[in-house]
């Protein structure tokens, strides 16, 4: 950077602000991580102390590994999150393409209707959803969760992606049509790569609530073989006593997969922004 536009004072100030923000944002995660590695006494004795010497204890992780089938819970969470994400992105992008590309009667109304879900929480329909799942025999299956989460994620996905797709050059799509690409090829090969940053954004915003959700797994899929991590971790919360070591260990472990997914998407985000598009 040129020295004409920066001064030491300003650089220091900017970094101080950024570091302060990072510390504040990461502090809860940090507390969970250090306490998951401590003895129960140490957790309550001095929650902010580092797990050093006597206070260091892996009992939480040992409990998690012994109790219940946490590997299966992780698999369930992963399956549900990835499958829901896939459908949210695929169907969201398809609907967005139709809304942004084709002129048909009721186009705007349809767009509004599809975006309405952003404002209305899907949990309001829990009873009806449960009745539907019972009627179709999907209770205690991962399919039930995937269906619900797909429905939950679609409104935001359609809304964001259709705005982005409107900005994709019409000439490019028309060039494809003249060169004999089908509408599907135009969608998958020309438009999707150009809206990849938007897809990554949608993916991140969709993924986190799904991974963290407790409500629907509890109601729709609470059987042992369909438990997700967040639901599985609830066994450590008792009516009279919580197993804090195990709970914190489970939460720490639960951070890892989302972190990996996030890193993948954020790389897409950056790559999409830096690759020159049409011009």
């Amino acid at each position, binding site marked *: 950077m040129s020295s004409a536009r920066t001064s030491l004072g300003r650089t220091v100030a900017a970094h101080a602000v950024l570091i302060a923000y990072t510390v504040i944002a990461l502090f809860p995660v940090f507390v969970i991580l250090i306490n998951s590695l401590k003895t129960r006494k140490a957790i309550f004795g001095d929650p902010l102390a580092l797990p050093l010497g006597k206070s260091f204890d892996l009992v939480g992780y040992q409990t998690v590994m012994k109790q219940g089938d946490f590997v299966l819970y992780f698999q369930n969470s992963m399956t549900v999150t990835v499958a829901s994400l896939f459908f949210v992105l695929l169907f969201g992008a398809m609907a967005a393409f139709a809304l942004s590309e084709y002129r048909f009667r009721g186009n705007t109304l349809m767009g509004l209707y599809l975006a309405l879900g952003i404002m209305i929480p899907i949990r309001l329909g829990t009873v009806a959803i449960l009745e539907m799942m019972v009627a179709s025999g999907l209770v205690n299956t991962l399919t039930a969760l995937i269906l619900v989460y797909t429905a939950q994620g679609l409104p935001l996905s359609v809304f964001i992606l259709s705005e982005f797709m409107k900005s994709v*050059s019409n*000439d*490019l799509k*028309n*060039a*494809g*049509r*003249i*060169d*004999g*690409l089908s509408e599907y090829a135009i969608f998958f*090969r*020309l438009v999707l*790569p*150009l809206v990849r940053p938007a897809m990554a954004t949608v993916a991140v915003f969709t993924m986190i609530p799904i991974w963290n959700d407790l409500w629907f797994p509890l109601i729709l899929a609470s059987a042992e073989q369909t438990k997700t991590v967040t639901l599985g971790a609830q066994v450590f919360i008792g009516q009279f006593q919580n197993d804090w070591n195990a709970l914190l260990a489970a939460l720490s472990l639960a951070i890892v997969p989302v972190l990996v997914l996030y890193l993948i998407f954020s790389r897409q985000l950056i790559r999409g922004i830096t*690759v*020159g*598009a*049409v*011009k």
Partner: protein
Amino acid sequence: MGALELKAVGKSFGKTEVIRGVDLTVEDGEFCVFVGPSGCGKSTLLRIIAGLEDASAGDILLDGQRINDVAPAKRELAMVFQSYALYPHLTVRDNMGLALKQAGVAKAEIAAATDKAADMLALGPLMDRRPAELSGGQRQRVAIGRAIVRRPKLFLFDEPLSNLDAALRVATRIEIARLHRELAATMIYVTHDQVEAMTLADKIVVLRAGRVEQVGAPMQLYNDPDNVFVAGFIGSPQMNFLKAAALGEQGETLGIRPEHLEVSRKAGRFAAQISHVEKLGGETLVYARSETHGLLTTRLFGEHDFAVDETVHLTPLAERGFRFDAEGQRMR
């Protein structure tokens, strides 16, 4: 091979009528230019011909076949866009070959066709680059190459030069004229720039608000415009429009080209005050304001010294003028 005919073609977006009953014939091998101000419907008409937009009314015929319901890819035409519209993820070679690949042409044949087009446009060294690695002028040449590779019956150009700088614009214009001679193909070219229209066209179609104002060869439009709009649009600097009554002429308006308006310090038909002078070396443009006629332009050959605010006398060469009635139609 490549004669286009439009019969009463119309297009509405909802309630707004954008193209109103266009009748037009483009002969095989002709270079036809659609010209008109921005928003007059040139691109829309071109997209209707390409099949990217459905006509609301009328027929489009290519070589006598009605093609209203034929898909764009099956119309045997190629289009060059103002924004180049190259596929960002493909190399220049693949950009140029995509249409043939989609049509199921053999690989060797595609390679031969792309290489030949690359030779014509001197694109050889760029073939393995991606569009992001090319300059604007190179991108436009690739876009033109992509059109050539298909050997279409009809080339469609939508303002292909407007994103290029002035020098490149002239060079590419010459290139397009050369391609037209070499390929002997029918070309339809859209521009809002009347200089491009005059220099390239066999036939100019002047459009205004979705209607054809006049069709003809460049010099025909220049020397024999049908109405005030065409007279004002074709020719640069613009034609002067004088109040006919004040000059004792018949009709409403007298159109005089800048070269047919004489300037004198001593005597003339009416007085005017010079507001601006542009010396271009070979010619001098003098802008003068008259009480009755408003701002007028005159063009003198060679160098002339006039001062701003100087009062001069102007004399229109009435026998070189065009007379228009109150509706703006030419009186012959």
